[in-house]
């Protein structure tokens, strides 16, 4: 676990300076209710705050805008006490009404927030989501510094949800001023505020001098340069023009960097709450037979796949990644066993082989991984035709159930928050298996759904271990039914310029990708 003292300032840190981070793609929107890609995710985290927060570089919850909170004994009500003197970038002090406004806004269908579903346990959510009611009945501003949130069921993940970007607090007047363009003119309470945004070129965040944690952030400015091809970004880093290549080290340059000790020293490696897996549509042949699904699990040579992507991942044997609480450490998984797999195929009556399709996203390295999987499957008689499509097309095919197999890479499940439940709901539960849902295996096991619901209702510190055990059991059951073949958990490699300072954990922060802007600093 990352050893970082609870918000104690880094004694080596020097305030001041600015850094340059490059990205290939445009920054979509900085509206916390809407932004949902790994690129704007961390920027929003620096511009806005939520009631809850994580200890930098870790997955440990800590209070954010709420100084403290209390949970009722039945786990159905939370009372948050807001930190005094917190100001929005526009100078106005943040109050409980802002919290209520923000939560109402994110669940209002007019906002079209992709994160609205996370708030499903709050009282009044269904009415608000359907448009029948304005605002969440369960959220009340008790007084300017106190917010009370009532739930319809106990929800062990609720505090994580309160640390999720979608719950971040926005000032009503700024939202109303810019309307749908609020995402281009963000105003929050965060460590940085927006200084300049030239579309397609540059986005500059500057230090918020009034930030509620004294001394933070260290940097005066963070400049994001947009539209930079990853290979080019790395060349610029090598020339000293860039501090962090936001898209990571491109595979084509990975070897070169890792073979040079000087450069390698500047690469920080860390885990990720991510699993890459192959889904098998359990409603269509041949994957309606559990034997076939298990055979697939045994046929994959995960070591070779990992080798092929320059060992930038570790083989996986279950849905949860190792750094996720609830990971089953002693589980061995299916193991690479071609003969065993063939036997299973024969048991399923498919010794003559079978034809199917494997969908994958079309950006490197996903087509390559799909081809490696294809070859492994061919060895046991499964002839998979590859369909390498744009992300949206794969998601569509997965949602409407027309894809027998999907390699999840590029769209893979990166956890929204570090909790085992996050890997179940949309992607393995019955509700996700509906048309258009994200459960591409169309796997629906009512018993497991019940078990999952029960696990999530175990709230409070005391129930923590029991809950994790319950989740572990759920995932073990999943592996028995084998709707997925987990392949690997990607590792993160962040490269930085020589002048970048701060603990390594900040460069592989599990919730801020690529780095935690608030706590890093420069040495020159």
């Amino acid at each position, binding site marked *: 676990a990352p050893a970082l003292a609870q918000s104690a300032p880094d004694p080596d840190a020097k305030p001041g300076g600015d850094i340059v981070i490059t990205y290939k793609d445009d920054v979509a929107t900085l509206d916390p209710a809407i932004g949902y890609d790994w690129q704007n995710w961390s920027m929003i985290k620096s511009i806005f705050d939520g009631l809850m927060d994580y200890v930098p570089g870790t997955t440990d919850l800590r209070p954010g805008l709420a100084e403290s909170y209390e949970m009722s004994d039945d786990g159905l009500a939370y009372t948050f006490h807001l930190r005094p003197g917190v100001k929005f970038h526009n100078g106005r002090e943040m109050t409980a009404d802002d919290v209520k406004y923000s939560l109402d806004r994110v669940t209002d269908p007019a906002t079209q927030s992709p994160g609205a579903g996370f708030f499903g346990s709050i009282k009044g959510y269904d009415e608000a989501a359907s448009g029948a009611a304005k605002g969440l009945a369960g959220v009340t501003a008790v007084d300017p510094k106190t917010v009370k949130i009532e739930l319809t069921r106990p929800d062990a993940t609720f505090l994580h949800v309160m640390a999720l970007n979608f719950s971040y607090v926005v000032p009503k007047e700024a939202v109303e001023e810019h309307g749908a363009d609020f995402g281009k003119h963000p105003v929050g309470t965060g460590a940085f505020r927006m200084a300049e945004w030239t579309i397609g070129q540059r986005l500059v965040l500057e230090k918020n001098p009034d930030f509620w944690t004294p001394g933070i952030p260290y940097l005066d400015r963070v400049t994001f340069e947009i539209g930079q091809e990853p290979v080019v970004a790395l060349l610029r880093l090598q020339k000293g023009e860039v501090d962090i290549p936001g898209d990571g080290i491109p595979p*084509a340059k990975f070897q070169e960097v890792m073979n040079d000790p000087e450069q390698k020293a500047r690469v920080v490696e860390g885990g990720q709450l991510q699993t890459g897996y192959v889904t098998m549509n359990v409603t269509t042949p041949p994957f309606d037979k559990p034997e076939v699904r298990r055979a697939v699990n045994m046929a994959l040579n995960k070591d070779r796949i990992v080798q092929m992507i320059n060992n930038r991942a570790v083989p996986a044997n279950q849905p949860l990644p190792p750094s996720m609480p609830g990971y089953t450490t002693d589980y061995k998984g299916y193991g690479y066993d071609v003969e065993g797999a063939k036997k299973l195929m024969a048991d399923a009556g498919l010794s003559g082989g079978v034809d199917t399709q494997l969908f994958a996203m079309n950006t490197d390295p996903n087509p390559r991984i799909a081809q490696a999987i294809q070859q492994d499957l061919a060895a046991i008689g499964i002839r998979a035709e590859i369909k390498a499509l744009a992300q949206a097309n794969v998601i569509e095919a997965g949602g409407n159930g027309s894809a027998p197999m999907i390699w999840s890479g590029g769209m893979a499940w990166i956890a929204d928050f570090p909790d085992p439940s996050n890997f179940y709901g949309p992607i393995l539960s019955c509700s996700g298996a509906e048309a258009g849902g994200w459960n591409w295996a169309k796997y629906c096991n009512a018993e497991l759904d019940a078990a999952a619901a029960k696990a999530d209702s175990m709230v409070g510190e005391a129930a923590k271990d029991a809950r994790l055990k319950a989740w572990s059991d759920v995932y073990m059951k999943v592996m028995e039914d084998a709707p997925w073949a987990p392949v690997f958990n990607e590792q993160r490699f962040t490269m930085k310029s020589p002048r970048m300072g701060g603990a390594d954990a900040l460069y592989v922060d599990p919730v801020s990708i690529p780095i935690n802007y608030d706590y890093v600093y420069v040495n020159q």
Partner: protein
Amino acid sequence: MTSPLTPAAGTTVTAAPPERGVLARLLRRPLALLGIVLIVLVVAGAVGAPWLTSYPPDQQNFDGLTLEGAPMPPGGPWLMGTDLLGRDLWSRLLYGARTSLMIGVLANGIAVALGTAVGLTAGWVRGWTGTILMRLTDLMMAFPALLLAICLAAVFRPSLWIVALVIALVNWVQTARVIYTETTGLAERDFVAAERTLGASGARILWHHILPHLVPTIIVWATLGISTTVLLEATLSYLGVGVQPPTPSWGNIIFENQTYFQSAPWLVFIPGAAILILALAFNLVGDALRDVLDPTQRGAR
């Protein structure tokens, strides 16, 4: 004054002089010969791929990657190195020639044929048909080809044939425009009017008298299109709407590996050279063919 008018005329109809075939005349030109040899080699490589390679093109060889997952440079068992999946590049190149020949020669050929047909018709028929055809061409010209290709390919689900068809549908426009302009010019020429006064049908005039004049232009566009279509196919593959992996094509080998141009240059430059050579070969033959088919050039060299 009639005497000087009838100089001794030949008494018998002499047989046509032994008109050497087009091919024979082509073969006499060193550059054209080089082009033909190159084309024959590529075709032979494509056809004979199974016998010329030691590994299947899709086989991901265990020893084809280093332990760090890097591809092998040319040398040893790998004539031209391996790719990022440890597959034999030589084998993929030869099998890829099949795809690329089909795209560059067939699809592009269809495009040029279509463009010629449209341009010829529009240039000859004029009136409503001509106007509609030319406005359609303008429309297509104003329409980004890549987008059309992507949409068509996405709708029809990618396969080699679909890609070939899409490329043909996208690439006819410029040819049509150029052929149209030339046809309208030719239609004004006296020898066409002369044909009309003889009562020749439109089809006859087009086929026998206008088309032969368009041959140089057609050859230029057909040869130029080879590399551009091969690369367009690659772009489509890259966007996931081209020929699907693991089927190799020269274009998609380049596109898959383009960022590796420094660390594994053979993956980019060898297929790049292959495209260049194919295009160059067709260009050489095309240039020569243009001269050989043009009687006014005969004996000029």
